[in-house]
């Protein structure tokens, strides 16, 4: 008898301020290196400017804050991050230059049948979107993506963030 292997995915939830509804992103487990409390986020001075980053695993992870429609919140401070969100998930794409920490309210692990992951219909595609598909479970929609698609979506934002050159670390 042939059985289908289920897969485990990391589920990152961002709530709409003051509401329970929000955005749920599903990524391969290996794309999330660690999850830290937002109280660990620091405003680090670099070259006469400030980079809001999380220091963990001997590296600085620039902070990215999304709204529930994946709009990037600019110029956030460590105080704002710890007020508005509980956790920061460290996301590591293939190119470590574009690693970042995504602020969120919850990170869980879910198991699902790969056949239940549905490709986004062509009519809903845009070139810039990092969303590759959907998973519908318990009357809730989860958006399927991965670290490389998120990094591509954030590329110009991440390139503008000042950082120390500490790319010698290998995470893959």
């Amino acid at each position, binding site marked *: 008898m042939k059985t289908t292997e289920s897969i485990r995915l990391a589920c990152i939830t961002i709530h709409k301020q003051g509401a329970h509804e929000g955005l749920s992103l599903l990524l391969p487990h290996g794309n999330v290196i660690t999850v830290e409390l937002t109280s660990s986020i620091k405003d680090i001075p670099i070259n006469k400017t400030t980079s809001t980053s999380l220091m963990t695993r001997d590296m600085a992870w620039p902070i990215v804050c999304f709204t529930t*429609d*994946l709009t990037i919140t600019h110029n956030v401070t460590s105080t704002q991050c710890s007020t508005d969100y509980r956790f920061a998930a460290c996301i590591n794409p293939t190119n470590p230059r574009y690693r970042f920490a995504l602020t969120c309210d919850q990170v869980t692990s879910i198991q699902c049948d790969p056949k239940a992951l549905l490709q986004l*219909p062509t*009519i809903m595609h*845009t070139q810039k979107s990092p*969303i590759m598909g*959907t998973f*519908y479970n318990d009357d809730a*929609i989860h*958006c399927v993506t991965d670290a490389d698609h998120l990094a591509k979506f954030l590329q110009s934002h991440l390139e503008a963030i000042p950082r120390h050159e500490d790319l010698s670390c290998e995470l893959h």
Partner: protein
Amino acid sequence: MRTTLKTDCWVLHLNGGYTLAISIFQVAELVNNIPRLSIPQAPAHCCYLISWRDKLIPLVDYQTNSSSSDSDNIMIVKFSGDDKNIQHLAFAVTSVEKHTVNDSDFSTLCPTPQHQSKLPFWSSVISAFQSNDGVSEREGESGTTYIIDIKHLYSS
């Protein structure tokens, strides 16, 4: 004796003021009060899915400021996909009505730049007709009812 060929269709008055005609065989169901599932960074006219009969169906809503209103009417339309499977697409509508169109009513559309800039689904238009009985002559509408290739719209 001269005979006139007539075709029965459903006319969909879409949010945003556009009017489409579809075959009576393409109607799957008219639903309302169905929750919209938001997909971030999707095109403004199609940024929600709806869950219908255990399927997730893209919802086309040309009134982009209608946000997440879930008290609206939604027409679910079926069509044959690439692999000949039946697929579905949903349209947010203000109203729908049955209509009989005469072959002589059909017009040849000239693809003017004005048409192309005003019609978000222009590249999927197959034909059109002008209604003589007021079906498409509501306030704010152009009076033209379009027939579109839904498979093309879904895949574009």
